[in-house]
Each structure stands twice: as C-alpha cells, then as structure tokens.
C-alpha cells in the first residue's frame, strides 16, 4: 500500500468512525425511536387489525408487512443520518475541518454515505429482531435480502447527503422526508399488495421507486412479489449510480459548502 493510498484509508476510517460514534452516542434519538414506532406498528397493524385481514399470497398480514417495515426503517434512518449529521457539520462550520484538510472530497462522501447506511442497516436488524417477537419469518433468498438492504441504505444515505448539501436551515432537511419520502413509502406497498388496487392505480404505483424496492425486498424475505424483481433491482442500481455521480460533482464544486 503506497502512502497516498494509506492516507486515504486513514481519512475514510476517521470520517466513518466519527459518524458511527455519533449515532451510537445519541442512540436515544437514532436507534431507540424505531424500536417504539415499529413495536406499535406490529401491535396495531399486525396483531389488532391484521388478524381481521385475509392472508396475502399465503402469508398472514403480520408476516406480509414485516419486509416493508424493515425496508421503511432502513430508508428513513439512512436518510436522516446523513441529512442530520452533514447539515449539523455545516451549521457548526466544523465541515471546514474536512474541507481544509488534504482529504479528497470523495472520501468525505464515502465516509458519510457508509456511516448513514450503517445506521439504517442497524435499525433494519433491530426491526427484524422485534418482528420475531410477533411472528415467524423464514427468509427465502438471503442474498437478495442483503443486497437490497445494503443498496437501499446506500441510496438513501446519499439522498440525505444531497439534501444536506443544498439545505440552508433545519427546515430544509425535513421537507423532503415529510413531503416526498413519507408519502411514497406509505404508497409504496408497505401495508398492502398493489394487486388490491384498481388497475389504473396499479399502473401509477409502478412508477414509485420505493414500491419497487419494497417489493423486491419482500421477494427476498417471503418469496412473493407483485412486480418484476429484476426491474426493482436495476432501478436501485441506476438510481444509486446517478446520485453518486451527482453527489461527487456537488462536493467537488463545493456547492453549498464554499462561497
């Protein structure tokens, strides 16, 4: 390993370690809230309401919503982590510590992206554990589960980073999650199969990328899907690469960071 390579690895590890330390230190705001909300979802939708609902694709309603809730947790937490942490660094100006250092901008990007993804995935694992108190899950295709979880975590982590790059105040980092991501998630087949929708709504729903991701993830866990999983998988990859390039350009140019 040559010196430049070594320095890059050290710099990356520093950013990543700082991100992990951050979300672990404030666990009561990062890791714990999903435990509460997801337990409530399982009790209310799974137990109380779910028992009155017919099986979907051979699974109880409780089992059917587990993959969607896991995916939802991964996505929102990955996004919230980079958005909050990176905007916080901008707000306190401590982002300048990174900007003046000899670390290339792509290292900042990868450090934050991986840090955010790790929080999302940690919460995902926690939610899987909670679900085991309520129902049995036999994972059908572990490879697809892991791949989709990781790719979605990375994708939403990048999304949060881009949001933070453009954000000028704290309202700007809650706008997209509230008005774009939450609706798309709730309409993204977390709680229902789109086969239950009228045909025209099915056609519109297919345009929702979150639906495709949730559906592919559900195929990994339960082995059932409404849509084409290859399409879902390709979509995440394409979106990820697009956001990655966009984010690299933004950081390189210093959009929202340098005057």
């Amino acid at each position, binding site marked *: 390993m040559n010196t430049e390579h070594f320095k890059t690895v*050290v*710099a990356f590890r*520093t950013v990543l370690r700082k991100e992990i330390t951050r979300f672990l230190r404030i666990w009561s705001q990062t890791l714990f809230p999903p435990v509460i909300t997801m337990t409530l979802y399982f009790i209310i939708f799974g137990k109380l309401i779910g028992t009155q609902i017919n099986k979907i694709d051979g699974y109880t309603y409780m089992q059917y919503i587990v993959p969607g809730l896991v995916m939802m947790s991964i996505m929102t937490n990955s996004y919230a982590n980079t958005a909050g942490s990176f905007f916080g660094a901008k707000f306190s100006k*401590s982002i300048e510590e*990174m900007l*003046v250092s*000899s*670390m290339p901008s792509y290292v900042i990007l990868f450090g934050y992206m991986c840090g955010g993804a790790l929080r999302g995935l940690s919460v995902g694992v926690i939610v899987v554990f909670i679900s085991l108190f309520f129902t049995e899950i036999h994972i059908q295709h572990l490879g697809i589960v892991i791949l989709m979880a990781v790719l979605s975590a990375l994708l939403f982590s990048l999304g949060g980073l881009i949001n933070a790059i453009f954000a000028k105040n704290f309202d700007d980092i809650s706008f997209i999650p509230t008005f774009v991501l939450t609706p798309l998630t709730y309409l993204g087949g977390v709680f229902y199969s789109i086969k239950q929708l009228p045909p025209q709504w099915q056609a519109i729903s297919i345009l929702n990328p979150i639906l495709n991701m949730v559906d592919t993830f559900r195929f990994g866990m339960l082995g059932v899907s409404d849509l084409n999983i290859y399409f879902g998988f390709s979509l995440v990859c394409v979106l990820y690469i697009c956001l990655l390039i966009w984010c690299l350009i933004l950081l390189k140019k210093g959009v929202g960071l*340098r005057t």
Partner: protein
Amino acid sequence: MYALSVQNLKKIYGNKLTALKGINLEVEEGDFFALLGPNGAGKSTTIGILCSLVNKTSGKVFVFDYDIDTDLEAAKSCIGVVPQELNFNPFEKVQDILTNQAGYYGIPKNVAVPRAEYYLKKLGIWDKRSQPAVRLSGGMKRRLMIARALINEPKLLILDEPTAGVDIELRYELWEFLTELNQKGTTIILTTHYLEEAERLCKNVAIIDHGEIIEHSNIKSLINRLNVQTLILDLRAPAHSLSNSKFHFRMLDELTMEVEVLRDMSINALINELTEQGLVVSSMRNKTNRLEELFVRLIAENKKSEAQIL
C-alpha cells in the same frame, strides 16, 4: 521557491461584490508575513481561497509550487489554518477534535495521539482534553484552533486575526509561541488589526484595502519611509501656543500638545524650541505606533486616489 505565490487573484461574491480585484502576493519560505488591512478589505477572503473554503473567480495560487487548481491535495497538506471565527463542533471533545483533524490528513492514530498531546500541552489546554470544546473559555478556544492547525505539522501556518479579542497575557504568550515556531522553520502568514503585532513579529508585510494590495514590502523599510511622526507632549504648565514655530502643532488642551516632526527635522530641535519658549515637557510619546501612522496614511491616500478615479 515561494511558500506562497498569488497571481492576479480575483474574487467576486455572487456576481456582484468584488472582494479581490486581482491581487499579487509573494511570501518567501521561512518568512513571518503580515497581511494588514481595514475591515472588509479582503483578508479573510484571500485566506479562504488559499485553504479552499472560498472558490476563486480567477487567478493563480501556488503553495510551495503546488498549483491549487491541479495539485489541491498536495497544496493543502502543506497548510495549517486558524480561521477568524470558531469552526469546531462545540460538543466534540478537545482531544477528539485534534485526532479527527489528524485523521482527515491521513495521519494514523498512533502518530496523532502523541502529537495532539504535545500541542495541547504546548498551548496549555491539556487538562481540558476530555471536555467538550464548548466548555473552554474564549482564549482557550482560540488556542485549541491553533493546536488543531498544527496537527499536520504544516510548513505554512496561516492565522486570521488570531489575537482579536484575546487578553494581553495570552497575546504575549501567542507571540512568543509563534516566534518560536517561525524560528524552527515554519512560514507564518498573519492577518491582524494590531499593527504593533505586525511590527513586533513580522519581516514582510502587505497592506490590502478594498481588494487591492496597496503596499507589499519589508516592514523595516516601510517604517523608514514614514516621513513624519506625530508626538504628544504633556506640559508641566498651561500654554496656548508656540510662537513662529517651524513645527506643525496644535493644542489638544491647555496641557497637551500634538506636534508633527518631519523626517529631516530632529527631536533636539523641537526640544530646543520648547525650552527657548519656556515650556516644560513632563512626558512625550508617539501618538500611534509608527506602523499604524503609516497605515492610516496609506489607506487615506488610497481613498483619495480612488475618489479621483471616480
């Protein structure tokens, strides 16, 4: 090789405000260089461009011959910067601020930890190492930023008004510390309001005003060029004037007189004249420090010439 070479550097903020009008600067290796100028002159903008916190509009910057357009990372690894305003995460621990900064430069923990200890001790904040930065006093926060700027052992240390709002004792301590650092070979660039500071510490100086360098030379020769100094005399007994004096003077009050002494006149002549007229002087001092006098005159001239252009 220059530690810093700036060529025709321009900065326009948001297509409107021209902060730098194409400045040229050269700082020799090992120099202790002062960048002086009134508020809003463009000092922080210049520094921001050097350490890539501000995007330049045009021009060239070389740091130890590394072009910041093509060799940005190499250029940045030569620089340590102490910004004008606090820019650390206030909730981070003092020691973590230093080791993380080292990490960004690619310095591994086993090197960073002892180095952080060295600089924290050197700057007298070692016993605060486990405290979040927010708990430090104002002066300590500034020292923390200096320690942080040194963590990559930069060849060029840039300080943007490091002693603004710092008490006299700490100012003296910092002066001593910076002098020692400079003697060990670190090139230092300092912006300051305190001209006394520049006069005491620095070898070379540039004066910037309205985004233009209006003076760029050796500090000693600059002071020698000052062809007039203003003295304040405290008189033992009330007086009203000096009659037919060759000195330009005015009375500030009955007991205080302000006199301008041109370079080709001597202070002896002034004293003689005062004695002849029976005035007893109990004390005498320069109205301002000499660099300050020069500075004020240069800025005033710049204003005049600008007014003529307009």
